[in-house]
Protein backbone atom coordinates (compact mmCIF):
# COMPACT_ATOMS: atom_id res chain seq x y z
CA UNK A 1 0.00 0.00 0.00
CA UNK A 2 1.32 3.45 -0.93
CA UNK A 3 0.12 6.77 0.44
CA UNK A 4 -0.25 9.19 -2.49
CA UNK A 5 -2.15 12.35 -1.40
CA UNK A 6 -4.08 13.91 1.42
CA UNK A 7 -6.90 16.39 0.76
CA UNK A 8 -8.15 18.46 3.68
CA UNK A 9 -11.18 20.75 3.76
CA UNK A 10 -12.93 22.32 6.72
CA UNK A 11 -10.68 20.36 9.11
CA UNK A 12 -9.25 22.51 11.94
CA UNK A 13 -7.46 25.54 10.50
CA UNK A 14 -7.71 24.23 6.89
CA UNK A 15 -11.08 25.77 6.01
CA UNK A 16 -10.56 25.89 2.22
CA UNK A 17 -9.72 22.65 0.44
CA UNK A 18 -5.99 22.09 0.10
CA UNK A 19 -3.82 19.11 -0.81
CA UNK A 20 -0.55 17.48 0.24
CA UNK A 21 1.25 15.21 -2.24
CA UNK A 22 2.98 12.37 -0.40
CA UNK A 23 5.89 11.42 -2.67
CA UNK A 24 8.39 8.57 -2.19
CA UNK A 25 11.16 9.06 0.39
CA UNK A 26 11.32 12.16 2.61
CA UNK A 27 8.73 14.96 2.52
CA UNK A 28 9.41 17.88 4.89
CA UNK A 29 6.56 19.98 6.34
CA UNK A 30 7.67 23.44 7.41
CA UNK A 31 6.22 26.77 8.57
CA UNK A 32 6.00 29.13 11.53
CA UNK A 33 4.49 28.33 14.94
CA UNK A 34 0.71 27.90 14.86
CA UNK A 35 0.41 27.71 11.07
CA UNK A 36 -1.16 24.22 10.99
CA UNK A 37 1.65 21.61 10.64
CA UNK A 38 0.43 19.37 13.48
CA UNK A 39 -3.14 19.80 12.19
CA UNK A 40 -1.98 18.03 9.00
CA UNK A 41 -0.72 15.08 11.07
CA UNK A 42 -4.03 14.98 12.92
CA UNK A 43 -6.00 15.09 9.64
CA UNK A 44 -4.09 11.98 8.60
CA UNK A 45 -4.79 10.17 11.88
CA UNK A 46 -8.45 11.19 11.74
CA UNK A 47 -9.10 9.81 8.25
CA UNK A 48 -7.32 6.59 9.30
CA UNK A 49 -9.94 6.04 11.97
CA UNK A 50 -8.81 7.93 15.11
CA UNK A 51 -11.77 7.73 17.46
CA UNK A 52 -10.57 9.84 20.44
CA UNK A 53 -11.29 13.59 20.36
CA UNK A 54 -8.79 14.08 23.21
CA UNK A 55 -6.13 12.42 21.04
CA UNK A 56 -6.73 15.27 18.56
CA UNK A 57 -6.41 17.94 21.25
CA UNK A 58 -10.18 18.49 21.27
CA UNK A 59 -12.91 18.17 23.85
CA UNK A 60 -15.42 16.53 21.50
CA UNK A 61 -15.09 15.35 17.91
CA UNK A 62 -16.87 18.44 16.53
CA UNK A 63 -13.79 20.44 17.62
CA UNK A 64 -12.05 19.23 14.46
CA UNK A 65 -14.46 21.27 12.29
CA UNK A 66 -13.16 24.71 11.33
CA UNK A 67 -14.23 26.95 14.23
CA UNK A 68 -13.83 30.26 12.43
CA UNK A 69 -11.08 32.88 12.44
CA UNK A 70 -10.89 36.61 13.05
CA UNK A 71 -12.53 37.16 9.64
CA UNK A 72 -14.41 33.93 8.82
CA UNK A 73 -17.50 32.33 10.30
CA UNK A 74 -17.30 28.73 11.59
CA UNK A 75 -18.02 25.87 9.19
CA UNK A 76 -20.42 23.00 9.76
CA UNK A 77 -18.62 20.35 7.81
CA UNK A 78 -15.11 18.89 7.65
CA UNK A 79 -13.77 16.32 5.24
CA UNK A 80 -10.40 14.61 4.78
CA UNK A 81 -9.65 12.29 1.86
CA UNK A 82 -6.62 10.02 1.50
CA UNK A 83 -5.47 8.73 -1.87
CA UNK A 84 -3.72 5.33 -1.79
CA UNK A 85 -2.35 2.77 -4.24
CA UNK A 86 -2.66 -0.89 -3.49
CA UNK A 87 -0.79 -3.86 -4.93
CA UNK A 88 -3.03 -5.95 -7.20
CA UNK A 89 -5.56 -8.06 -5.25
CA UNK A 90 -4.48 -11.59 -4.32
CA UNK A 91 -6.49 -14.53 -3.01
CA UNK A 92 -6.66 -13.78 0.73
CA UNK A 93 -6.91 -10.05 0.25
CA UNK A 94 -10.25 -10.54 -1.38
CA UNK A 95 -11.32 -11.72 2.07
CA UNK A 96 -11.72 -8.09 3.09
CA UNK A 97 -14.90 -7.88 1.09
CA UNK A 98 -15.05 -4.10 1.14
CA UNK A 99 -11.88 -3.70 -0.92
CA UNK A 100 -12.62 -2.87 -4.52
CA UNK A 101 -10.61 -4.67 -7.19
CA UNK A 102 -8.99 -1.52 -8.50
CA UNK A 103 -5.58 -0.45 -7.38
CA UNK A 104 -6.47 3.13 -6.65
CA UNK A 105 -8.22 3.65 -3.36
CA UNK A 106 -9.74 6.77 -1.94
CA UNK A 107 -10.71 6.76 1.71
CA UNK A 108 -12.62 9.74 3.04
CA UNK A 109 -14.12 10.75 6.34
CA UNK A 110 -16.66 13.50 6.72
CA UNK A 111 -18.19 15.01 9.86
CA UNK A 112 -21.12 17.42 10.19
CA UNK A 113 -21.62 19.48 13.33
CA UNK A 114 -23.74 17.40 15.68
CA UNK A 115 -24.32 14.62 13.13
CA UNK A 116 -21.29 12.32 13.53
CA UNK A 117 -18.75 10.84 11.06
CA UNK A 118 -19.20 9.02 7.78
CA UNK A 119 -16.48 6.96 6.07
CA UNK A 120 -16.35 6.19 2.36
CA UNK A 121 -14.12 3.88 0.36
CA UNK A 122 -14.09 4.75 -3.33
CA UNK A 123 -17.41 6.46 -2.90
CA UNK A 124 -19.16 3.60 -1.06
CA UNK A 125 -20.08 4.05 2.58
CA UNK A 126 -18.19 1.73 4.97
CA UNK A 127 -17.89 1.33 8.73
CA UNK A 128 -15.08 2.81 10.85
CA UNK A 129 -14.12 -0.75 11.73
CA UNK A 130 -13.44 -1.63 8.06
CA UNK A 131 -11.11 1.33 7.69
CA UNK A 132 -9.27 0.59 10.92
CA UNK A 133 -8.82 -3.04 9.82
CA UNK A 134 -7.59 -1.99 6.39
CA UNK A 135 -4.81 0.10 7.93
CA UNK A 136 -3.97 -2.31 10.74
CA UNK A 137 -3.33 -5.03 8.14
CA UNK A 138 -0.93 -2.71 6.32
CA UNK A 139 0.83 -1.88 9.61
CA UNK A 140 -0.14 1.76 9.44
CA UNK A 141 -3.00 2.41 11.86
CA UNK A 142 -3.65 5.73 13.55
CA UNK A 143 -2.12 4.32 16.77
CA UNK A 144 0.91 2.74 15.07
CA UNK A 145 4.35 3.55 16.56
CA UNK A 146 5.23 4.85 13.09
CA UNK A 147 3.24 8.04 13.76
CA UNK A 148 5.02 10.12 16.40
CA UNK A 149 3.04 13.24 17.46
CA UNK A 150 4.59 16.48 18.64
CA UNK A 151 6.14 16.17 22.09
CA UNK A 152 5.52 12.40 22.02
CA UNK A 153 8.98 11.18 21.01
CA UNK A 154 10.08 10.63 24.64
CA UNK A 155 6.85 8.71 25.41
CA UNK A 156 8.32 5.26 24.59
CA UNK A 157 11.19 5.84 27.03
CA UNK A 158 8.96 7.26 29.80
CA UNK A 159 6.14 4.71 29.36
CA UNK A 160 5.57 1.80 31.76
CA UNK A 161 6.91 -1.60 30.67
CA UNK A 162 3.36 -2.90 30.08
CA UNK A 163 2.58 -0.02 27.73
CA UNK A 164 5.70 -0.76 25.69
CA UNK A 165 4.70 -4.42 25.50
CA UNK A 166 1.49 -3.39 23.82
CA UNK A 167 3.54 -1.81 21.02
CA UNK A 168 5.38 -5.11 20.64
CA UNK A 169 2.07 -6.94 20.33
CA UNK A 170 0.89 -4.53 17.63
CA UNK A 171 4.03 -5.34 15.67
CA UNK A 172 3.56 -9.07 16.21
Amino acid at each position, binding site marked *: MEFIRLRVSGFK*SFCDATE*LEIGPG*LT*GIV*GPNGCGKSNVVEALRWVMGESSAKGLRGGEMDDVIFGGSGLRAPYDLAEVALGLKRPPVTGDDAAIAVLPKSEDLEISRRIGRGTGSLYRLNGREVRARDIQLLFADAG*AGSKSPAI*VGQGQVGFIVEAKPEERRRLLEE*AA
Partner: protein
Amino acid sequence: ARTRLEAVFEDVDRHFRHLFQRLFGGGKAHLRLVGMDDPLTAGLELDAMPPGKKLQNIRLLSGGEKSLTALALVFAFFLTQPSPLCVLDEVDAALDDANVERFADLLEEMAKETQTRFLVVTHHPLTMARMHRLFGVTMAERGVSKLVSVAFDEAERFKESA
Protein backbone atom coordinates in the same frame (compact mmCIF):
# COMPACT_ATOMS: atom_id res chain seq x y z
CA ALA B 1 1.05 -16.44 20.89
CA ARG B 2 4.12 -16.50 23.14
CA THR B 3 6.59 -17.75 20.61
CA ARG B 4 5.33 -15.15 18.14
CA LEU B 5 5.81 -12.38 20.69
CA GLU B 6 9.26 -13.68 21.53
CA ALA B 7 10.23 -13.88 17.85
CA VAL B 8 9.15 -10.27 17.30
CA PHE B 9 10.96 -9.27 20.50
CA GLU B 10 14.21 -10.73 19.20
CA ASP B 11 13.85 -8.82 15.92
CA VAL B 12 13.06 -5.50 17.57
CA ASP B 13 15.88 -5.97 20.11
CA ARG B 14 18.44 -6.74 17.37
CA HIS B 15 17.46 -3.63 15.43
CA PHE B 16 17.35 -1.51 18.61
CA ARG B 17 20.93 -2.47 19.64
CA HIS B 18 22.23 -1.61 16.19
CA LEU B 19 20.29 1.65 15.75
CA PHE B 20 21.22 2.90 19.23
CA GLN B 21 24.92 2.57 18.40
CA ARG B 22 24.38 4.30 15.06
CA LEU B 23 22.52 7.26 16.61
CA PHE B 24 24.88 7.67 19.58
CA GLY B 25 28.08 6.83 17.66
CA GLY B 26 28.83 4.11 20.22
CA GLY B 27 27.55 2.97 23.63
CA LYS B 28 25.27 -0.03 24.27
CA ALA B 29 21.57 -0.62 24.71
CA HIS B 30 19.18 -3.56 24.76
CA LEU B 31 15.59 -4.53 25.48
CA ARG B 32 14.43 -6.97 28.15
CA LEU B 33 11.12 -8.82 28.51
CA VAL B 34 10.19 -8.90 32.18
CA GLY B 35 7.55 -10.89 34.05
CA MET B 36 6.94 -13.27 31.16
CA ASP B 37 5.37 -15.88 33.47
CA ASP B 38 2.17 -13.89 33.20
CA PRO B 39 1.84 -12.67 29.61
CA LEU B 40 -0.95 -10.28 30.57
CA THR B 41 1.32 -8.20 32.79
CA ALA B 42 4.62 -8.84 31.08
CA GLY B 43 6.51 -5.69 30.19
CA LEU B 44 9.23 -4.46 27.86
CA GLU B 45 12.17 -2.89 29.72
CA LEU B 46 14.90 -0.79 28.22
CA ASP B 47 18.56 -0.40 29.25
CA ALA B 48 20.61 2.29 27.61
CA MET B 49 24.22 3.36 28.10
CA PRO B 50 25.44 6.36 26.07
CA PRO B 51 29.13 6.13 25.04
CA GLY B 52 31.58 6.53 27.97
CA LYS B 53 28.84 6.43 30.59
CA LYS B 54 27.71 3.81 33.08
CA LEU B 55 24.49 1.88 32.72
CA GLN B 56 21.86 3.74 34.72
CA ASN B 57 18.14 4.12 35.10
CA ILE B 58 16.86 5.49 31.77
CA ARG B 59 15.11 8.27 33.65
CA LEU B 60 18.54 9.88 34.22
CA LEU B 61 19.07 10.30 30.46
CA SER B 62 19.15 13.90 29.25
CA GLY B 63 16.39 15.41 27.07
CA GLY B 64 18.35 14.84 23.87
CA GLU B 65 19.54 11.37 24.91
CA LYS B 66 15.93 10.41 25.62
CA SER B 67 14.80 11.55 22.16
CA LEU B 68 17.61 9.61 20.43
CA THR B 69 16.92 6.43 22.46
CA ALA B 70 13.21 6.71 21.66
CA LEU B 71 13.93 7.20 17.95
CA ALA B 72 16.14 4.08 17.96
CA LEU B 73 13.20 2.12 19.40
CA VAL B 74 10.61 3.64 17.03
CA PHE B 75 12.76 2.75 14.04
CA ALA B 76 13.46 -0.73 15.49
CA PHE B 77 9.69 -1.43 15.57
CA PHE B 78 9.49 -0.01 12.14
CA LEU B 79 12.20 -2.21 10.61
CA THR B 80 10.56 -5.28 12.24
CA GLN B 81 7.15 -4.49 10.80
CA PRO B 82 7.61 -2.11 7.89
CA SER B 83 4.84 0.43 7.51
CA PRO B 84 3.94 2.24 4.29
CA LEU B 85 3.98 5.59 6.10
CA CYS B 86 6.02 7.16 8.92
CA VAL B 87 5.14 10.56 10.38
CA LEU B 88 7.56 12.43 12.70
CA ASP B 89 6.35 15.72 14.25
CA GLU B 90 9.33 17.79 15.50
CA VAL B 91 11.17 14.78 16.94
CA ASP B 92 14.43 16.73 16.51
CA ALA B 93 13.39 19.60 18.84
CA ALA B 94 15.69 18.55 21.75
CA LEU B 95 18.69 17.52 19.62
CA ASP B 96 21.95 19.48 19.21
CA ASP B 97 23.35 19.96 15.70
CA ALA B 98 25.61 16.89 15.70
CA ASN B 99 22.75 14.63 16.78
CA VAL B 100 20.41 16.19 14.21
CA GLU B 101 22.96 15.20 11.54
CA ARG B 102 23.07 11.59 12.81
CA PHE B 103 19.27 11.47 12.92
CA ALA B 104 19.08 12.84 9.36
CA ASP B 105 21.71 10.34 8.15
CA LEU B 106 19.58 7.51 9.51
CA LEU B 107 16.42 8.92 7.93
CA GLU B 108 18.07 9.10 4.52
CA GLU B 109 19.20 5.51 4.84
CA MET B 110 15.79 4.27 5.94
CA ALA B 111 14.25 6.07 2.95
CA LYS B 112 16.71 4.27 0.62
CA GLU B 113 16.33 0.80 2.13
CA THR B 114 12.53 0.71 2.47
CA GLN B 115 9.50 1.70 0.40
CA THR B 116 8.23 3.76 3.28
CA ARG B 117 7.13 7.33 2.73
CA PHE B 118 8.14 9.77 5.46
CA LEU B 119 6.42 13.00 6.52
CA VAL B 120 8.80 15.02 8.68
CA VAL B 121 7.60 18.19 10.45
CA THR B 122 10.63 20.25 11.55
CA HIS B 123 11.98 23.74 12.32
CA HIS B 124 15.58 22.59 12.06
CA PRO B 125 17.46 23.83 8.94
CA LEU B 126 19.78 20.77 8.97
CA THR B 127 16.80 18.39 8.82
CA MET B 128 15.03 20.47 6.15
CA ALA B 129 18.12 20.34 3.96
CA ARG B 130 17.98 16.52 3.77
CA MET B 131 14.34 16.33 2.58
CA HIS B 132 13.53 15.23 -0.98
CA ARG B 133 10.74 17.83 -1.17
CA LEU B 134 9.26 20.48 1.09
CA PHE B 135 5.67 21.55 1.77
CA GLY B 136 5.07 24.81 3.54
CA VAL B 137 2.00 25.49 5.64
CA THR B 138 1.09 29.15 5.40
CA MET B 139 -1.41 31.33 7.15
CA ALA B 140 -1.34 34.13 4.58
CA GLU B 141 -4.85 34.87 5.84
CA ARG B 142 -4.60 34.74 9.63
CA GLY B 143 -6.29 31.73 11.14
CA VAL B 144 -6.61 30.00 7.73
CA SER B 145 -4.01 27.36 6.75
CA LYS B 146 -2.98 26.40 3.23
CA LEU B 147 -0.47 23.86 1.93
CA VAL B 148 1.99 24.93 -0.78
CA SER B 149 4.95 23.18 -2.34
CA VAL B 150 8.17 25.06 -1.53
CA ALA B 151 11.47 25.24 -3.43
CA PHE B 152 14.53 24.67 -1.23
CA ASP B 153 15.90 28.20 -1.59
CA GLU B 154 12.59 29.58 -0.38
CA ALA B 155 12.55 27.39 2.74
CA GLU B 156 14.37 29.94 4.90
CA ARG B 157 11.62 32.47 4.23
CA PHE B 158 8.99 29.90 5.18
CA LYS B 159 10.34 29.40 8.67
CA GLU B 160 9.52 32.89 9.76
CA SER B 161 6.30 33.79 11.53
CA ALA B 162 4.28 36.45 9.83
